[in-house]
């Protein structure tokens, strides 16, 4: 089980900093930073800049994404913002608007 879970129905306005993995099912507005994996589940809303390890998105993210690892945009994901990561996958059915920056 993930060490930090933002459940559906919960809204955090502000800054979230975590050492371990974070699962977002609810809403975060502000900033989200994690050293480990971040999962934005379906139905979740993240209106924040995200800096993390591996990032998996099935919900909505509005903000710039910086990942030290890979970013997976799954089907149903809605992402508006620039993505900087070592690897990125965008599944069929994911909506994405923004720049992609990979260390080429």
């Amino acid at each position, binding site marked *: 089980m993930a060490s*930090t879970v933002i459940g559906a129905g919960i809204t955090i306005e502000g800054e979230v900093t975590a050492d371990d993995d974070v699962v977002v099912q609810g809403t975060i507005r502000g900033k989200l930073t994690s050293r480990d994996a971040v999962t934005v589940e379906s139905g979740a809303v993240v209106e924040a800049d995200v800096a993390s390890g591996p990032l998996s998105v099935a919900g909505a993210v509005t903000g710039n994404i910086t990942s030290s690892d890979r970013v997976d945009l799954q089907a149903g994901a809605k992402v508006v913002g620039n993505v900087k990561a070592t690897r990125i996958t965008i599944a069929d059915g994911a909506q994405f608007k923004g720049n992609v920056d990979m260390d080429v």
Partner: protein
Amino acid sequence: MATRDAVTVIGRGTHVRGKVAGDGDLEIQGRVDGSVAVDGDVTIEQGGLVASDVSGRRIVVRGAVKGDLTATESIALEEGARVVGDLRAPRVAIVGGLVRGYVQSGDGQGAPRGAVKSAAVARPAVAAKPAVPAAKPAVVAAPAPSAPRAVQASNGSPAARAAQPAPQQVAHVSRERAEAPRAISLAGGAPAAKQGPPPQVVPSLKKGAKGALKKKA
């Protein structure tokens, strides 16, 4: 909605600066600065630190809180809890831990806070030492100086009457802090009879001893 069983966990290494709101249960093992206001249950685990007001349905504290706790149902402070702030809930249980603050249980329709505060002069002293009610409660210590006066005035009734409330107070302090302010304001008038007169500040001298000293000098 499936949010009732949706649990939100702020993990050990997680720090939230800002507002946490919504419905669903919340478990805090990390740090929260800002405010916490949820409709569900809030559990602040051992190692958890909340530097803000917390409101919820039921609040269980095993960690540290610096802020007011307000619950619509109950508050329980368990072993390891450290709270600096006021507690307000229909039911307040302090099973263990340390508290410094005002406690109000019941439906909150009683006397307004200001009135209680003015009556209970000893409030900070009580709040400062909540964890060791059995050892040396501040409540008993405070009225001690006035004890001899009352005993001298009439040996029988006030002392005997005072003997009754004193131990009860101690039990109240440990069991339900909400009762404490009222109990103390009562105690202000009725001194604890358990303790005898305090030791004399000035050592007693025999009659004529002063004169003898003067003569020697």
